[in-house]
């Protein structure tokens, strides 16, 4: 039965499909920009995000800098988003579409849960994100690439899990760690040396700070920790108890310890 004043006739449980079918004016679609013979669109880009498993679950972190070409677009954008109580998403690439995708993803999971009466399994969540990235492919061809990381706690298997994606929506589950964005290579190198699956939470936070500091050291697009402006990376952990954002004072003391031990070694 169709009800007046309630959109069209979409009957399913997906929010992004609902937008696509009944509310085309709101749907995520940047593929329509024809820019033949021009340079890539100049929009802010997010840089380094990383995710890895630790003893209690999974940790996701990202720096706060957005760049537009050689210029700083924003010093304190957020790149790690909680998508529900047990999952999160870290964005890299064109900031506008990526942030919008994180927003839709969040509504998507809540919408499904409300319509169906129970939430998606974590594989279902990752699959849904993969479809959204695939739908963004025309925009990616125009330079608006979005390649997020997705991570969360699997309540069924009782372990943290994480995925990376490519522009075509290809979805690859990672067993240990992953980093992406302009400084992702350096962060991954750092993680390769310091990552330990059995690390407890304090050690996990330190591993993340080490990796982000290394990435900021090598990659000009990645923002370091800025104690002067009080800009700290976003670090979110997810365990059996759900997601929890690591507080600023904990990040600050961990960072100071990292700097101290590096100074003692006599190098950066």
């Amino acid at each position: 039965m169709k009800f007046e004043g309630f959109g069209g006739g979409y009957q399913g449980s997906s929010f992004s499909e609902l937008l696509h079918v009944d509310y085309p004016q709101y749907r995520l679609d940047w593929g329509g920009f024809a820019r033949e013979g021009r340079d890539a669109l100049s929009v802010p880009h997010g840089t380094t995000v990383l995710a890895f498993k630790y003893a209690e679950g999974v940790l996701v972190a990202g720096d706060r800098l957005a760049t537009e070409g050689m210029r700083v677009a924003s010093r304190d954008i957020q790149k790690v988003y909680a998508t529900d109580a047990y999952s999160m998403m870290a964005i890299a690439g064109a900031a506008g579409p990526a942030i919008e995708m994180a927003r839709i993803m969040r509504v998507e999971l809540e919408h499904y849960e409300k319509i169906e009466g129970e939430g998606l399994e974590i594989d279902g969540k990752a699959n849904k994100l993969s479809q959204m990235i695939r739908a963004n492919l025309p925009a990616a061809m125009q330079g608006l690439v979005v390649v997020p990381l997705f991570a969360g706690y699997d309540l069924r298997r009782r372990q943290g899990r994480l995925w990376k994606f490519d522009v075509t929506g290809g979805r690859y589950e990672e067993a240990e760690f992953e980093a992406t964005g302009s400084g992702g290579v350096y962060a991954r190198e750092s993680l390769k040396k310091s990552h330990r699956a059995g690390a407890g939470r304090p050690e996990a936070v330190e591993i993340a700070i080490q990796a982000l500091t290394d990435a900021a050291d090598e990659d000009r697009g990645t923002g370091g920790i800025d104690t002067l402006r009080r800009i700290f990376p976003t670090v979110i952990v997810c365990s059996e108890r759900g997601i929890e954002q690591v507080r600023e004072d904990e990040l600050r003391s961990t960072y100071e310890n990292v700097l101290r031990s590096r100074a003692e070694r006599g190098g950066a």
Partner: protein
Amino acid sequence: MSIPFYVSPEQVMQDKAEYARKGIGRGKSSITLEYEGGILLMAENPSTLSKIGEIYDRIAFAGVGKFSEFDQLRKIGVRYADVKGYAYSRDDVRARSLANAYSQAMGDVFTRELKPLEVEVIVVEVGDPELAGHERNAIYRVQFDGSISDAEGYCVIGGSADELTTFLKGQYKSEMPLGDALRLGRSALQRAAEGQIAVAPENLEVCLLEKARIGRKFRRLSTDEVREYLNA
């Protein structure tokens, strides 16, 4: 060519209303009560198919009558709220606008379609003292013909709504603790199930909109929690 019989519009409306009332009257009632910590929604419901559902951060829904019809209304309500919250902001999603939309849609079905909806719904919004302009709770009741009313303190829909409303009028006190509100609700539902044995906790569907919660304020109580509150 056959000439259709003339039936006066008054007669048509009366017949439809009677049909709808009969359908709704066969079902059990659903009660909404304001308590000190927010809003309590409860219904006698032995099945696993829910009569109460979450719509948005501060908004919940309860329906009585034909399941397929009110569940459809619940789903379009979720879609309406999520699209609105996405297009504007989460704080712009309000129960009044949703209740009005329900009223329009249900009234439209009542006049246009041959068969009216055999449902009644309640849309509630819990107030947030931190949010200017959103401090107060709101309870709206929408009937099968689209007629809409707002209630304060308590509201009953379904089978024995009139009788239970009279009962609650005498018993309801504002700012009750949750346990008291839950027991009052149960004794009202028990009245509706006259002559039958006590309404057991496992046959109660109980949901809350809790003022103190951050973000989504809707919570469904488990049977154990319900039992605990009833026995306290």
